[in-house]
């Protein structure tokens, strides 16, 4: 269960879809991403809320040329120059997904839902090509799950089984991404013995977590 960052990310293969937690830098598993850059896997599809900030974390992975496609809600920020440059140069694909649909599509993948109807995006350019249906007088769009080969998330404390608790708004996408990937790798600030976490406060049960890295 407990790995070094290098060993943990060796699960990532060329061409994989990798779910990356975080909202901006809050909850971003920077050390796991650094290890992934070292590991060298490429042709990746990255699913994350943003497309990298500054020059570290996800931005560094993009700068290293390892990413074929980004699926995110908000790639355009004042400090997203790495993504901006690649996108304008036609060197990266982008799928923009409304933030709530992104979260729910990940949740659906983890919960075994085949697809779902969402009211978000009806009447907008993002509805193009999507099946729509009127249910009880309201229009909805059919949305499909987003499944990852690997999820890289950051939590606060884990026990040795892999039960996780998070800290404040750094929780964001971590719990849903943990459920949506074949292999979930969590970096945490601290690992405690089994029994040290109050079962009532565990947010991500260990069943969803495959590898732990303490940083």
């Amino acid at each position, binding site marked *: 269960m407990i790995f070094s960052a290098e060993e943990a990310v060796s699960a990532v293969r060329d061409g994989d879809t990798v779910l990356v937690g975080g909202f901006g830098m*809050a909850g971003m598993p920077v050390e796991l991403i650094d290890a992934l850059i070292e590991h060298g896997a490429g042709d990746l599809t990255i699913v994350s809320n943003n497309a990298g900030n500054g020059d570290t974390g996800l931005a560094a992975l993009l700068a290293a040329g390892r990413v074929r496609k980004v699926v995110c809600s908000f790639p355009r920020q004042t400090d997203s120059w790495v993504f901006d440059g690649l996108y304008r140069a036609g060197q990266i694909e*982008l799928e923009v997904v409304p933030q709530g*649909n992104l*979260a729910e599509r990940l949740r659906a993948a983890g919960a075994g839902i085949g697809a779902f109807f969402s009211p978000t995006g009806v*009447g907008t350019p993002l509805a193009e090509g999507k099946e729509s249906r009127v249910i009880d007088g309201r229009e909805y769009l059919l949305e499909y799950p987003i499944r990852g080969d690997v999820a890289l998330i950051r939590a606060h404390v884990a026990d040795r089984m892999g039960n996780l608790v998070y800290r404040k*708004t750094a929780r*964001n996408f971590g719990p*849903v991404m943990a459920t949506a990937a074949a292999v979930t790798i969590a970096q945490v600030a601290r690992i405690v013995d089994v029994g040290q976490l109050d079962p009532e406060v565990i947010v991500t049960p260990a069943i969803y977590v495959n590898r732990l890295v303490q940083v």
Partner: protein
Amino acid sequence: MSLSREQMAEIVARDIPEGAYVNLGIGQPTMVADYLRPDSGVVLHTENGMLGMGRPATGDEIDPDLTNAGKQPVTELPGAAYFHHADSFAMMRGGHLDVCIMGAFQVSARGDLANWSTGAPDAIPAVGGAMDLAIGAKQVFVMMSLFAKDGRPKLVPECTYPLTGRGCVSRVYTDVATFSVGPDGARIIETFGITADELINRVGMPLVSSPFD
């Protein structure tokens, strides 16, 4: 006199019901928090997973794990709760949020909202949570200047920019007037430093003047 941004924020704050659960969009809507009375019982939601958000954090309070949707450091109030992103948007989509306040490029008389893209061919598309908020909150209020920098009205018969949501806006707060919008069209609620006739003339479309005007 037209209203300052601060005065606009004060007017919006006045119209938020006591005890409401409210999401303030990034930018100008954030200023509304400064004018909420402490005893109003209004609870702020931030879509990155928190209810009970407090004021911006300063000095030692700054915690990189505690930010608002604009990724600025904030504080937590007693009674705050954290939750993951799917829950955060479920409470929005599920109709539990009373009011959402957003900026806009354009709003139509019918309440269509355009606030995520100007449709410029070289722009990088980025929508964030705007589409989810637009259709999720029970009421969507827009705060914006009524006229763009080039003088064109931003309250329009039909949005020409790509839509964020259809028929979702109920109230539009601007620097020169407050409007209600919806299936029956745009109605002037209040004007600031301009007469209703001047306003109708400058906006260039039919506006119903409220009987209290």
